């Protein structure tokens, strides 16, 4: 698949209190972001476990974006800090597996940051587009058809 034409599939875990609201705001403000992201609302990014990121990548996502509140602004005090540590752990795990660690990224977005969210998504899509499709999909079919 040509890198230029490849449309990556990005799973974006967005915190209800910030990034999800900023995506909402982006819609209200008519700010466009690439349609490559599938947004999943979470009560807090601190709710996310490493296994969620792994399952997303295993079942066919080309990239995972975790968007939590600004540091110091978490509704649950430090959920976003926990999420960042888990994302870092997942990045290390991906290296062990043999997958590019840049397929997963943690960002901090406030509910008012509609434009930065759109820019972040565009940047993530571009990063993953350069990386190419998830290598899991290159070697036989992924589990995307029948996720466990």
């Amino acid at each position, binding site marked *: 698949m040509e890198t230029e034409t490849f449309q990556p599939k990005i799973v974006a875990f967005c915190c209800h209190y910030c990034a999800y609201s900023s995506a909402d705001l982006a819609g209200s403000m008519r700010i466009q972001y690439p349609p490559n992201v599938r947004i999943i609302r979470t009560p807090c990014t601190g709710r996310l*476990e490493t296994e969620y990121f*792994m*399952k997303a990548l295993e079942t066919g996502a080309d990239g995972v974006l975790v968007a939590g509140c600004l540091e110091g602004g978490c509704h649950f005090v430090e959920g976003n800090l926990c999420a960042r540590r888990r994302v870092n752990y997942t990045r290390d795990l991906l290296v062990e*597996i043999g997958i590019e660690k840049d397929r997963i990224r943690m960002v901090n977005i406030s509910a008012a940051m509609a434009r930065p969210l759109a820019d972040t998504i565009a940047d993530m899509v571009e990063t993953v587009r350069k990386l190419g499709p998830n290598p*899991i999909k290159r070697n036989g079919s992924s589990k995307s058809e029948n996720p466990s």
Partner: protein
Amino acid sequence: MIVAQRKTIPDLLAIVEKHRKLLVLGCGTCVTVCLAGGQREVSIISSALRMAAKLKGLPLEVEEGTIERQCDNVFLEQAADTIKNHDAVLSLGCGAGVQALAERYSGKPVYAGLDTAFIGILEERGVWAEKCAACGACMLHLYGGICPVTRCAKHMLNGPCSGSREDHCEVDSARPCAWQLIYERLKSIGQLDELKKTKPPKNWRPSLAGGCRTIVREDHRV
């Protein structure tokens, strides 16, 4: 509790790559608490193995399971049917769990997915520290509840080595001197006199030196 940590994914793949149907079996006790081999870690490691195998083009099927306690035959029975349907088991239990599985299912390859490290406690979130060497002849009552066998790098039993720097061990400057801790603890509970008593040489026979140990309780045997 028993504290363990997972082996790396390349190491695990090298162990299991000769099999086609693998069961990754977690344990719901110590290794769940130390975040090494519980249900969540089974899920993570299984995903990682599936992905790593796919990248290498290996036809490895990985299924997941967790039982309450791998070191107990009663719980091992619960996994019998699942284990029967797989070529091999990658145990995420401690060393005792792996061996219990291997003994119970003698015809089935059982591999250790974790490196069992020590008996310890959760000191702070994400940090576990060794507290007990299971030496078989506990002397904690003499040292204010701080074990010099485990926590002193030189296992000194009759006082400090004099090598400590600013209350920290000369072997590892990040580690507090066990004997400093013992002194402060005995002082705070009014038992400094304990230090004036000369301790006889420790009986090491109940420790691991003579091979694996067994405890028999006749009152509980059937």
